[in-house]
């Protein structure tokens, strides 16, 4: 067993896990944070995207041990004080989700992307989402949601 200490959504968490434990199963099964979904076994779909020290990563492609001593943010950590994050609100307002299974990964990928590029073009948003598959929406309203959130977030910080 390997001891892993990770700050998850601002809370220090520690556990002994099998060395082969993937970060996504550490989050889902050890910590009970089931908001991060698993969609494939080839690092292709992006459903399991979380933030590691603020950058988007595929939690199915990292070992829990690789997150030791670092900060992880999952979809459960996006809302604060009962208020949804502007990206969550924008997905709701723009019908950016249908079945919702890809949505946590989309929102985490978009969070990381907007931190790097707060005022993107539609084309830049589409390229940023290349690692996240959605089968329901055709992406149109996801792209619209992210552009809407970008506008509001940069407006709020200006």
């Amino acid at each position, binding site marked *: 067993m390997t001891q892993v200490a990770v700050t998850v959504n601002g809370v220090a968490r520690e556990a002994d896990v099998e060395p082969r434990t993937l970060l996504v199963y550490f989050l889902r099964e050890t910590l009970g*944070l089931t908001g991060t979904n698993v969609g494939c076994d080839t690092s292709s779909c992006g459903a399991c995207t979380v933030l590691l020290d603020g950058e988007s990563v595929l939690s199915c492609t990292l070992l829990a041990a690789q997150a030791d001593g670092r900060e992880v943010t999952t*979809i459960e950590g996006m809302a604060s004080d009962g208020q949804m994050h502007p990206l969550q609100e924008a997905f709701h307002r723009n019908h950016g989700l249908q079945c919702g*299974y*890809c949505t946590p990964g989309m929102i985490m990928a978009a969070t990381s992307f907007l931190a790097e590029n707060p005022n993107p073009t539609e084309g830049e948003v589409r390229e940023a989402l290349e690692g996240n598959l959605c*089968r329901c929406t055709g992406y149109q309203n996801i792209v619209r949601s992210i552009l809407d959130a970008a506008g509001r977030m940069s407006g709020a910080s200006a």
Partner: protein
Amino acid sequence: MTTTERFVGTTVLRKEDPELLTGQAGYIDNQTMPGMLWMALVRPPYVHGRLRSVDTSAAGEMPGVVGVYTAADLELGALPFVWPITEDIKVPVHYPLTADKIRFHGDAVAVVVAETRGQAKDAAEAVHADVEVLPAVTDLEEAMADGAPLIHEDLGSNAVVHWSHGGGGDQGVFDSAPVIVQERYTQPRLIPNPIEPRGCLAYGVPAQGEFTLMSATQIPHIVRATLGGVVGIPESKLRIVAPDVGGGFGSKLNVYAEEALALATAKATGRPVKWIEERHENFVATIHGRGVIHDCTLAGTPDGKILGLRFVEIADMGAYYQLLTPGIPELGGWVYMGPYDPEAYWYEFTGVLTNATPTDAYRGAGRPEATYVVERLVDAYARRIGMDPAEVRRKNLVPRFTEARTAISGLNVDSGDYHATFDRALEMAGYDDLRREQAERRQRGDVKQLGIGLSTYIEMCGLAPSNILGALRYAAGGWDACTVQCLPGGEVVLKIGTSPHGQGHVTTWAQIAADALGVTPDDVQVLHGDTSVSPLGMDTYGSRSVSVGATALYLALEKIKEKARTLAAHELEVAEDDLEFDRGTFSVKGAPDRARTIADLAASAWHAHAIPDGFEPNLEATAVFDPPNFTWPGGAHICVSEVDTETGAVEILRYVAVDDCGTVINPMIVEGQVHGGVAQGIAEALYEEAIYDEQGNLVTGSLTQYLVPGATEVPSLELDRTETPSTSNPLGVKGIGEAGTIAAPPAVVNSIVDALSHLGVSEVGKPATPERVWRAIQAARGGDR
């Protein structure tokens, strides 16, 4: 809250979103139980082979293993197949675990249950199957040939079913018409790939013989009606729950081996058993779609009048039938006239077994296959007679009709206005300008040529009138049911037999109930997807939920209003006819301040202190709706693409879609359905294809090889609608879940051929990959293919 606001026809943001946006969804993999075991299946790495023996001894000794079972250990019944479409259909027997042969990659020979997911998987790998490998066949025509390996020897042939529509009109036109166009079109298998794979969790009260199966399914009611017999649990003691389901597209419209095995092992061990499909399993063990070859004939006149349409199809059934398999091409068999009005019609298909995953309903189910070949053929006809394809369509589209008319295929079409959608789409696209630009590019000999692809379609939705299903030899009915309860506090609960997986039913149904009872959608609680909560239902597929399920809701609301009127008249001491009803309030004609709201009446019907004689306490009603007819959405899609004549690369520049799905409840949700449907149609046209090698191995068996498109590969769409109310239900609704997937593939492929037709290209194949397009250009130029 009593309100006079109206919600039907307006965008109401989705009630189901908050849990999905915050990581609180209840998808099957988020469900867990005390003492729960994990199940893993043993699928030997063979496509076709005789099973000599299965050795489970080593696996049984592995850490954490609680049980290892083969077919002989569990003695399960055959999986359900409910659509024997002809009297003489040959039906392969399909057990949850195979005991004699492996017939495709998804066939399992044993199942392991263990304490953890990892232990179950490790033990499954330790099961040894001794298999005599047999030659495999996945090509349709090879499977039909003499001497082909037989998938099921007892059936004597791989060609197992032949269904003919029987035709309509004078078949002589196919010989005598001045213009005869004949084409062969091939449509490869597609793999549905919802982002959530399948999964289930079985648990129960073994001492009572009662079991619950939670499953990522579209069809909890049909699973309940069919699975009990497989596992030896009476239907009355079996409850099926569909939790939040992460997409389906038809792939979860089935009753699968794993569902039976989870129940059987939960029964055998007395403990909860969970199974979660991995993506690589999903590629082989969950149904595929399409997989058809059509020989097509169009008979017409030189001036553009379509006289006859004839289609002879070969359809890939896969290694077994799943729930509906041969019924899928039959469903398409009723729409091969498209929105046109030919004098003669013929459709027939032969279903063929292969060593591949069973095919079944994939978004559109038979109707995309039909629409693709009809629309490709009409374009081929236009090229043959040198007429603009828009002009050919204008000449042949059925004129507007608002009462049902009988189509040449024999069914009654409820209503339609195909010219309106087509004219609007041409206007939005700027068709004449596009043709001018195309001519200029051709004149200049540009490397990048412009193509304009047209697709006009109809679909048959709202499955289905039970008497027609009976005539078509389908085992169940096509009704649906809803119970509405008005709570004494003014809230409304509705329990409905439909079962969504992303379509926004909670919001849409709440809008309908809110308008009828004068409350807001927030006051309406929608319950579904659990056979104990809404015991009557036929679930969600075939664009049926709004036209059948919501109509049952509408009728239950009418009953509520009728019952409430009786109570209001009693309390206000007037005759029922003296009451007016508006937005949830009954008031006395001429004395509007003498009134009772539905909430008032729900409270007095609940405490029942002063109700009329014979009045049943509570304001609650159930309605079951059996549709008198299908619903028939229609529309026109236009794809504008740019084709690089040097590389074969295709870029979609614009995509215009004008759909008519009858009355619209929530335009935002309707548009979302079109977006997703068109995206899957574009994927079918350009990217997706299940490819098998000579040995029958699925080469495109993961998301790294099977190209589910990403955000850079699907364009933003330009949408509009017309609304021609359905005559099949009082709401006038038709359904929109499948329209995009039906309309888009021919629009896209027609645009590519249109871009290249001046070079002599008449076919590029589907999916139109750069390589296929490039080869088509080379062949037309007389170079190497």
